[in-house]
């Protein structure tokens, strides 16, 4: 046992040594680089010929998305001889961990995709290329205003809004007929009120067996923020207009919380359609546990897939319910470039190319996603799957208000979303509305202060 004693001593010595190294490790704290402007807006909008090689990383959300990016790469390289864009397709899980490690070690891809609710983190830390100089006023004005705002931080654009998506309702037509639901809104202005939606859910509940539920909602995991749509519909907001404080508790928040908690009390949603679960709202619809579900338009290809898609019969789409107003969540992604990319001109040129009308149109048609250019948003795209369904989502996207965009893109949104995840999970398992709202308000306050 002598060797054991030695090892024990060695380990203890090692532990003490590790602790003592703390003292040696004292050095100046590292502050993140400050956000800065790369020049006057529009001053470099005529980029001219570009050459060189850059890497563009994105997650392969679907075959359609990959095809869309591959199309843009091919066209860009053909239009700019001597330029090469190396596509790096990565899994979604771990994507941003890889980006973050790459940024800290200087090995991150030059250009990468980022969702609107995450872009604020990178913009605020000053690691992204300021693209304002590369876009003239007319080029900036070509985007839907709310989505151009989504890529801005303190008035500076740090990326391009590439596409958007939002939530709407998908339903099984036969189940609706069985429940006696004969009229489904086909115009945004006719969207169900909360009361009308409740009546629909009640009718479905009556005709479904105990093992089935009227609907499922897409607030699972990182989608927790989609619950906020109910606050916006009720006429409230999460944050104050200056984005510096929580705008809750409020009557709208209480109304939204009571309404959504009632989904569980009335058995309108499966008991495991909560936040911390492995079953998402599209899974509930695909396995026919629910005849109606709230999903993002990017999931239409999954439902429409002839082999593995929905097998429950004909399905249609309709709008999110509305209360004082209509509202839906901000989904979709921007494309950004690293501030320290070796070839900012080439990076900016590729970003501009990705959001050119032709590239965006092809991408959206293939991936069943919504464009961010006004010209495309107002025209008919040839979607490869269920264009009738996409039409509903396109109309629904008009309810993504400037308030929704501003609140969803604050730098500390990830922390706010985590607060929402934890507190909604507890609320859906019995925590009172007042306790939940109070805890969310406290969490938002500390997130904004950090």
């Amino acid at each position, binding site marked *: *046992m002598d060797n*054991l004693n030695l090892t*024990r001593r060695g*380990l203890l010595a*090692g*532990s003490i040594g*590790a*602790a003592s*190294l*703390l003292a040696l*490790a*004292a050095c100046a*704290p*590292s*502050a*993140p680089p400050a956000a800065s402007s790369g020049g006057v807006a529009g001053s470099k909008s005529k980029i001219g010929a570009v050459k060189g090689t850059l890497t563009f990383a994105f997650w392969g959300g679907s075959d359609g998305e990959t095809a869309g990016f591959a199309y843009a790469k091919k066209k860009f390289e053909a239009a700019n001889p001597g330029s090469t864009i190396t596509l790096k397709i990565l899994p979604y*899980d*771990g*994507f*941003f*961990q890889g980006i*973050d490690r790459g*940024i*800290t070690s200087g090995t991150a891809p030059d250009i990468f995709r980022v969702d609107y*609710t*995450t872009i604020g*983190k*990178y913009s605020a*830390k000053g*690691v992204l290329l300021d693209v304002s100089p590369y876009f003239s006023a007319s080029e900036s004005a070509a985007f839907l205003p709310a989505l151009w705002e989504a890529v801005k931080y303190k008035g500076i654009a740090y990326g391009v809004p590439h596409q958007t998506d939002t939530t709407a309702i998908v339903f099984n037509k036969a189940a609706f007929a069985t429940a006696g639901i004969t009229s489904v809104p086909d115009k945004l202005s006719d969207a169900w009120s909360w009361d009308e939606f409740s009546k629909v859910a009640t009718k479905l509940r009556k005709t479904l067996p105990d*093992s089935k539920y009227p609907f499922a909602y897409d607030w699972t*995991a*990182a989608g927790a923020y989609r619950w906020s749509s109910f606050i916006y519909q009720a006429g409230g907001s999460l944050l104050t207009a200056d984005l510096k404080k929580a705008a809750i508790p409020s009557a709208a928040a209480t109304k939204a919380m009571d309404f959504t908690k009632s989904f569980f009390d009335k058995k309108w949603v*499966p*008991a*495991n359609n*909560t*936040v*911390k*679960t*492995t*079953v998402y709202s599209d899974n*509930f619809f695909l*396995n026919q*546990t629910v005849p109606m579900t709230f999903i993002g338009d990017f999931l239409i290809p999954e439902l429409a897939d002839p082999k593995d898609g929905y097998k429950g019969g004909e399905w249609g789409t309709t709008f999110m319910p509305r209360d004082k107003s209509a509202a839906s969540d901000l989904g979709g992604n921007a494309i950004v470039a690293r501030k320290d990319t070796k070839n900012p001109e080439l990076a900016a040129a590729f970003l501009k190319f990705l959001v050119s009308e032709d590239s965006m149109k092809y991408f959206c048609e293939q991936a069943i996603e919504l464009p961010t250019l006004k010209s495309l948003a107002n025209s008919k795209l040839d979607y490869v799957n269920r264009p009738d369904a996409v039409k509903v989502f396109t109309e629904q996207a008009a309810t993504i208000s400037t308030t929704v965009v501003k609140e969803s893109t604050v730098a500390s949104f*990830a*922390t706010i*979303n*985590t607060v929402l995840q*934890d507190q909604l*999970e*507890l609320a859906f*398992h019995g925590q009172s509305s007042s306790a939940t709202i109070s805890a969310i308000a406290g969490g938002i306050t500390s*997130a904004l202060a950090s």
Partner: protein
Amino acid sequence: MFLLPNIVMIAVFTLLPLIFAFVISFQNLDSLGGWSWVGFGNYVKLVTDPVFWQSMTNTGIFTLFTVPVGMILGLGIAVLLNGVLPGRTLFRSIIFLPLVVSGVATGVLGAWMFDQSNGFINRILGSVGIAPTAWQSDGFWAMASIILVTLWQRVGFDMLIYLAGLQGVDPSVQEAATVDGATGWQRFRLVTFPLLGPSTFFLLIMNMIYSFQVFDTVWAMTRGGPGFSTTTVVSYAYRTSFDEHGPQLLGYGAAVGVAIYLISLAITAIQWRFSSSRDQTD
């Protein structure tokens, strides 16, 4: 000289990360490298964080049910498969098989099986007239499902170690006990089981460390929910530090990691203490 490569590897891949973890636990560090010293701030936050203590309790409950039950099952199966049983090699392989499957794969499989709406388990229960169990929306049953999947995965390891221990038991000792009139149960309880002492100690410590560090199965099956009812210490550390859509508090996560390290160190110290006395009595 021959030890140098090993020393370098241990230093680079084990000691340095350990030291950095200690250092980071005294920092406010974000995922993009911005940091500042916070002294014992993360540890103060740790001891006042109710979710941390709930995760400690959950980990304790998980350990309490997985370690002894797994070892008893493993021992029972090892005794059965140590005898002359047709196809025993096949049975051993089948029972050991889950151990070679990754924890995440096991967790995903568990999530499918225990899906409370369409899962295999509830369908089986339903076919014999038992009402569906809320495996995913009730904290008690969610923890039970994780424990069951863990036992399924780990019992093969317990069996293997006990099997090796049983094959090291001198048959002449058993024969002497038989000659002295000991019954089968007495031979097992008073002769065989005490001789399996080193195996039992090894399994106890390994299983305790494994249970204390459980993450993959929990994350794949429940994400720590419902509520925080299946959040274990490591899953909490992971979510706090590495959830890409979370706050990514690497300093605080490191403090949780240090707490896990110290507890594992304590478990190891207990092992050494008991192993030493066992060896002395041997």
